[in-house]
């Protein structure tokens, strides 16, 4: 069993944090886990991405070229990474920040208006956790309690008050996806819908 993730967006959207939460949750559930950030000072405020590998044995390549799961937070990232997603893989994208689609029919695309949801909750910084919740709802690999434990762990001590806020956002994501159990559609349609802040969820068949 191996699950490879790519998470990408702008700096400041909590991309690296989200990746660490997934990686940590994987470890909580007994898997080997590995996380690599895009590192370096050049891209301050520019793009950020990270890759996560969960595996039931020692992780071979920690580098993810063809993710099973891509969590996408902006348009450049969608363009760059969605073509590499494995056939049968999952893309969760923040529909209210991205106006195009992966344009692939061999993957499941979940267009979640995570920004609107986070903003609506008065916590714009929880955008990433909404996406995490959406993933929880569509990929059963990680259990909620492991993700919750991961959030506790990854949040730095002086920001522990954020844990509750993040957990609420997580549930928002889960709930929203559960509330929109539509079939997978192409990204373009998702985007169109997202413009009206109504997401359409595609339930991937291939993704476990």
């Amino acid at each position, binding site marked *: 069993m191996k699950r490879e993730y790519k998470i990408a967006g702008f700096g400041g959207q909590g991309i690296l944090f989200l990746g*660490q939460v997934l*990686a*940590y949750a994987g*470890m909580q559930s007994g898997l*080997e*886990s*590995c*996380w*690599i*950030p895009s*590192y*370096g*000072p050049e891209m301050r405020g520019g793009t950020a991405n990270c890759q996560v590998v969960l595996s039931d044995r*020692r*992780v*071979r*390549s*920690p*580098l993810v*070229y063809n993710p099973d799961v891509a969590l996408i937070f902006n348009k450049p990232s969608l363009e760059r990474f969605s073509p590499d997603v494995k056939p049968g893989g999952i893309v969760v994208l923040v529909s209210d920040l991205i106006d195009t689609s992966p344009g692939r029919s061999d993957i499941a695309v979940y267009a979640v208006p995570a920004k609107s949801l986070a903003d609506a909750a008065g916590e714009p910084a929880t955008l990433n956790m909404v996406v995490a919740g959406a993933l929880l709802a569509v990929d059963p690999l990680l259990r909620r309690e492991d993700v919750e434990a991961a959030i506790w*762990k990854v949040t730095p001590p002086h920001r522990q008050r954020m844990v509750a806020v993040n957990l609420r956002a997580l549930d928002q994501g889960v709930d929203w996806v559960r509330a929109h159990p539509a079939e997978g559609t192409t990204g373009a349609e998702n985007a169109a819908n997202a413009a009206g802040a109504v997401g359409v969820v595609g339930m991937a068949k291939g993704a476990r």
Partner: protein
Amino acid sequence: MERTFMKGNEAIGEAAIRAGCRLYFGYPITPQNELLEYMAAHLPEAGGVFLQSESELAGISMLYGAVAAGKRAMISSSSPGISLMQEGLSFLASAELPGVIVNITRGGPGLGRITPAQSDYLQATKGGGHGDYNLIVLAPSSVQEMADLTTLAFELADKYRNPAMLLGDGIIGQMMETVTLPPAMDQGESKPWAATGCEGRERNLILSAPYTDQELMELNMRLQAKYARIKAAEQRAECEQMEDAEYGIVAFGISARLALAAVDDLRADGVKVGLIRPITLWPFPENAFRAYPKVRGYLVVEMNEGQMVQDVRLTVSDMVNGRVPGAAPTIRFLGHGGGYVPTATEIRERVMELARLLREAVGASEAVGAVRTASASGSVPAEGGRRTA
């Protein structure tokens, strides 16, 4: 034994503290700043001294002073900063001082970029500084090993009174993985040779230069004898699926992870391939190669323009001697400098190519009795395969 999830750079820091490292010196440079910052945050808690040095040059001499005082101490940097330490490293070696040095290599030459790289292999193993000396060089390929080899570096450094270097790269430094941390140790045995003030004993001298020409010759003899002992006792390599291997991939550090993925894929296709992963880059694990005399070809994979491949060729050319003629393994190289990271796919393709070549060579040799023509260019990086995108 604590299982946790950590960055490679931080795992070095934590393992160092647990290994009894009590002084750390460092100057900022990407991609190793997490180590510097980990030590800044945690070494004082452990009763140690964190001191940001004004430069790498000063830092390596601070290390020299701290280990001369008998303490376990460490410094870390990345490529350009390590180049600045070359005089200091030669001094540590000549004075037989056991400091630990970490190089989280980045893409070079020159200022380069913070892309991952393995281009400081030759500098680390062949003596970037002047004179005949060797560092013990350890190459972790996982966060777990970042911790484990840090512990080992302190132990070997003390055991042999020799500087030891941990040679990592940007990926492994930045990467987080599950890791089981070693238990805390004390600071190693007390060091009767240390310069701590001569109260109650003969005075101790920590000298880099012997007093006479003859003593310098003798120092060199002593060092070479020590290096021979280290070569005999401390070679380390991980060999995966080598027992029945016809082909071997040789790779260290992060490259070996990608190579291992390729081994999995190739084995799935029925190709008898294994991996030799040198853990000690110096001493180079020659014995590991000797253990598999049936290997017909090696693919050396590095994130540089062909550095460790020289040691593979030297090792294999040694093996040729005294062997049945015609059985020398072919050596091919895959790699580039400046931030290239091989993919498992590329590695797989190059192994297949090697296998094809050797099949043809066998055919040819049956016909005309000549073998291994194809390996003549082993040191020249092969065309193609460069990932520039």
